């Protein structure tokens, strides 16, 4: 398996990669399988951290920090607030019910195999270049090639902001 992926065990970098991958996968499993919803949320912290580590490993430094800033600092805190604001959530013993384990496992296994096949047999565009700072490249893309998506994302954010504010209002005030 490891040989197929082309990971050389003599290379210490491979061990760092494997450690991050293991942390990400194991904590993702805890997110799905834990019976305590707060543990699920905190396992998500490790998952996000592991993913950030993988980004850093791929020399995508800006994305790695953005991952921490937005997902750990924002999304995870939002999830935790959601859990903690829920009334009497401490009394609930089982938060993740397991239904249809066989069908679920079959679908998950199929998706996994499909993804594994795609990732192994696609002709990836392998770029063999020395690691370079990515922020400048991203900035150049934002003002050049991807100018429209950059501006459009601000409209998306505006929509998200207004929607969030609207949803959080009481029904009385919505009118």
């Amino acid at each position, binding site marked *: 398996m490891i040989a197929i992926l082309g990971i050389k065990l003599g290379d210490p970098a491979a061990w760092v990669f494997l450690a991050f991958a293991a942390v990400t996968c194991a904590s993702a499993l805890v997110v799905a399988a834990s019976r305590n919803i*707060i543990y699920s949320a*905190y396992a998500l912290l490790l998952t996000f951290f592991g993913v950030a580590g993988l980004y850093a490993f791929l020399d995508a*430094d800006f994305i790695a*920090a953005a*991952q921490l800033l937005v997902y*750990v600092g924002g999304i*995870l*805190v939002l999830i*935790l607030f959601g859990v903690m604001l829920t009334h009497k959530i401490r009394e609930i013993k089982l938060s993740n019910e397991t239904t249809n384990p066989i069908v679920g496992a079959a679908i998950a296994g199929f998706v996994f195999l499909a993804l594994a096949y795609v990732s192994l047999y696609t002709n990836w565009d392998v770029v063999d270049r020395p690691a370079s700072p990515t922020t400048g490249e991203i900035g150049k893309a934002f003002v050049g090639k991807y100018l429209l998506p950059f501006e459009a994302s601000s409209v998306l954010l505006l929509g998200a902001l207004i929607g969030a504010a609207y949803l959080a209002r009481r029904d009385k005030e919505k009118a």
Partner: protein
Amino acid sequence: MHPLLNFAHDVLPFTKNWPDWILYGSLVFIVAFGILNTLVAPLTGISTYIERRLAGRAQYRWGPNRVGFRSMLDALPITRGIAKLGDMQPFKFIGSKIPGGLLQFAADGLKLFTKEDIIPAQADQLLFRGAPYVILAGSFAAFAVLPVSFHFRAVNLNIGIFYILGISSIVVPGILMAGWGSANKWALLGGMRAAAQIISYEIPVAIALMTAVMLAGTMNMADIVETQRSGYGMEKAGMLGWYAFRYGGLMLVPFVIYFIGGCAEVNRTPFDLVEGESELVAGYHTEYSGFRWSFFFMAEYSNMFAVGAIATTMFLGGPLPPYPVQFTESLFGPMGNLGMVLRFGEGFFWFFAKSYFFVLLMIHMRWTLPRYRIDQMMHLCWKVLIPIGLVWFVLMCGVKMVRMEMALPPEKDAVAEVHK
């Protein structure tokens, strides 16, 4: 080749045979270990000593003045003589200045170490025990990129300041962990308040730092320091080159926004409503006691220092001295290796002096200002700091644009050049 590796190969020739990753790993480990044990832990102690002495002054009492230097001198017969000599007339001005209480923090550490470790019966063991790890890891990791002296930092990241913003956001889930794990309603309330406050103030802080990044054109902490050497048309401008004083003082506004936001991010007065003792006992670490509690304490004081250090790096030139650098360069330059050490010490001194200025300012604010209410705090963040920060960001872009326009050839020529 990494500069740190070159340095190691020069100084310790036998390391040339080592694999790079072992050498690099052990070097960073030594530096990080050094920073943690010679800087963060004692800095916490020294900061608490300063804080308690200043608190004593502010409240017209002494503060810690027994355990420490003076009593150490009194302990042995030989040194007791020195202490007595210091009390006599010609030296009295020194003897009366020997500070007492300097080792109070070590005594306190020992006391905390021997205290009973209480975990409330209803507490969530895993979260309760895990919170100090997350909080300390988040606040200590920010130290990795601080440029402590000229060209010296353990880790050289291209995204420097952005990395600090990202990694320090790990602290917020840690605080919620402590608050929720304690199974105490004050702790939970304090944790929620702290999280809401920290995430809110991250926006003005990030906008203020972004303004400095825009002017510098880089996010690398050491490069940002280098861009502050010159300014106002001078090659070596001394303190006029620091971003806080550039552009006729316009940058003072983002600087102040950063400092206010930084105080809020480390929950210092006037933003210490997350641990307002009159309403919440001690906030999210109410249930923590003994040694376990001391890690929260350490995280708080090292965060204070980090805020000062970031403000120093981004707006006050980091290790750059306030006088033009060529002054000491010409002095230390011919000295060879000794000169290098002296220059390193110079940068180190200024970095710490400036950072400690901010720590002192925060301590002074704590004993001067009353506490905000939560609605006032949110008002300040969302309706004052963020709008001003955004407007100032656009304004500084405009100022920078005008400056660059003056330096460039007129637009018509540039267009003609392209079409040629």
